[in-house]
């Protein structure tokens, strides 16, 4: 039994925030006696990651994903509990530890803005003390895998959001880290780019055996990448297991939004009607029947527009939470 790459045991992070109410009287009161509130951002979670695993860390906004990730990267000091990454304690921030990890944050850049990305790469090369041969090899592989081509020589501010993200990811991986933390890497990207980045992560994991922890609130990210998912809600783990189990158990439905001229038509025959307003009817259909029902709707009714959606992650999570943790 190889030791886990990441080991978390009963990890908690509690913030103390001051309560502030509006109004002059309350403000005066606060001056004399500050009222505080304890927020349990992360509340006693435990799980392990084996080397080379890709695990999706799911949960709605504010669930505690980013807080957990920051504790693993050594950015936050836990309130209680145990956490080791590659056998080391992250918040000690030992240099040897930092050389083996990397952090990619969606919508936040580490690339220097006004100059081509290649120069930030060079900077990282010096910071991480990458040997020239290793650097060249890694750069070549990343360029190929991410299809960077000429992007590296254009100033970063001239790149599109998706191109920038690709370069950010490459910059983060130059030093060949064995632990990769991805915090919402596909947020704000178009569907094509999201798919490309997912494909890259899979390939990187396959080629280099890196352990990947990916946070997201997109179901699609997780479906594409992770066999195993960990779901966190209100700071607590509510699911840790195979993705297929999660999908089968909790996302058996799809949502179809049909735009007709009005709300007069009775669509009960097609599926469970969730709501109807301004001519937009929302139906909940068992997943297996979605294609068939869509066909029927298009054939039978004067459909102006039709949209098939996965239920939002919040709905899935709510159902997971409601059913209790395993």
């Amino acid at each position: 039994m190889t030791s886990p790459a990441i080991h978390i045991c009963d990890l908690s992070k509690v913030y103390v925030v001051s309560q502030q109410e509006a109004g002059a009287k309350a403000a005066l009161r606060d001056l004399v006696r500050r009222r505080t509130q304890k927020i349990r951002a992360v509340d006693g979670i435990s799980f392990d990651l084996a080397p080379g695993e890709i695990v999706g860390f799911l949960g709605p906004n504010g669930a505690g994903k980013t807080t957990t990730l920051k504790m693993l990267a050594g950015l936050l000091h836990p309130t209680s509990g145990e956490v080791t990454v590659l056998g080391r304690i992250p918040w000690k921030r030992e240099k040897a530890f930092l050389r083996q990890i990397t952090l990619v944050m969606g919508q936040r850049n580490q690339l220097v803005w006004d100059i081509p990305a290649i120069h930030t790469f060079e900077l990282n090369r010096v910071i991480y003390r990458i040997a020239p041969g290793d650097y060249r090899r890694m750069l070549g592989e990343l360029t190929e895998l991410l299809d960077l081509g000429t992007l590296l020589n254009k100033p970063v501010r001239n790149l599109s959001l998706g191109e920038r993200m690709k370069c950010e990811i490459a910059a983060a991986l130059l030093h060949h880290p064995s632990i990769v933390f991805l915090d919402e890497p596909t947020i704000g990207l178009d569907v094509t780019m999201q798919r490309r980045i997912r494909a890259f992560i899979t390939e990187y994991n396959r080629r280099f055996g890196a352990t990947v922890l990916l946070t997201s609130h997109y179901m699609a990210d997780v479906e594409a990448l992770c066999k195993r998912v960990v779901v966190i809600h209100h700071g607590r783990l509510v699911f840790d297991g195979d993705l297929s189990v999660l999908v089968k158990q909790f996302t058996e439905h799809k949502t179809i939004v049909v735009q007709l001229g009005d709300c007069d038509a009775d669509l009960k025959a097609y599926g469970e009607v969730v709501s109807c307003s301004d001519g937009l009817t929302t139906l909940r259909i068992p997943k297996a029947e979605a294609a068939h029902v869509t066909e029927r709707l298009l054939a039978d009714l004067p459909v102006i527009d039709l949209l098939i959606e996965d239920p939002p992650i919040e709905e899935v999570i709510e159902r997971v939470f409601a059913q209790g943790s395993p």
Partner: protein
Amino acid sequence: MSYLRLLAAFFRVSIRTELAYRVNFFVQLFQSLLSLGMALGGLAVIFSFTDTLGGWRPDEVLALVGVYFLVGGMIRLVIQPGMEEFIDSVRTGTLDFTLTKPEDAQFLISIRRLQIWELIDIVMGLGVLGTALVRLGTNVGGGEAAVFILMVVAGGFIIYSFWLILATLSFWFVRVENILVIFQSMYEAGRWPISLYPGWLRYGLTFIVPVAFATTIPVEALTSRLTWETLLGAVALAAALLLVSRGFWRLGLRRYSGTSA
């Protein structure tokens, strides 16, 4: 050793960043010359009415102007851009990237950005200083030059620590970047010998906002005014402030990562 390589790497990045905006060079040149013109103009006006200013001869005050631009350029080359970018990174969260790098975070944020074109001010300052020394006819021997450089370095470290302490406040307060602008206002007062000012102002410009260490004191080294007490005091203060600012920085980092209770 690795610190030098890092410094060189950041230097390269900064040069490239500035070269991306070549027009900046000409604008900076124009603005620097304008500042110099203003300083020299003010000097000319004052000294058309008197031969000495508080015991300082015109060319001694000229030397002071030279050091004012030299040290000012150094501050705006290295210290100011790094601190401003650091304060911004606390607000936007990009500080997290710096903290996951395997190098000392204080060092990284300090040299992160260099405003290369401030070299113009440094060169200009050296030119004015050199001219003043020639006109004074002082023989600047190896000893004096060494002491001068020591005072400039000590002054530089004092200013750096001062800025770092203020910038570290952004771990606790949000609108800290405004405080740094106060320094720039007060630095203006450094164009004149500190000895001119009334006691309370002199005290403020030495110990509260350490402008005196940046300008007057290094020039005193070249105009035979520097006392042993001042020299040792400056060096001691520089060392002490470096330690204090480092300690405060670490305290701030611990607060940022939620270490303290």
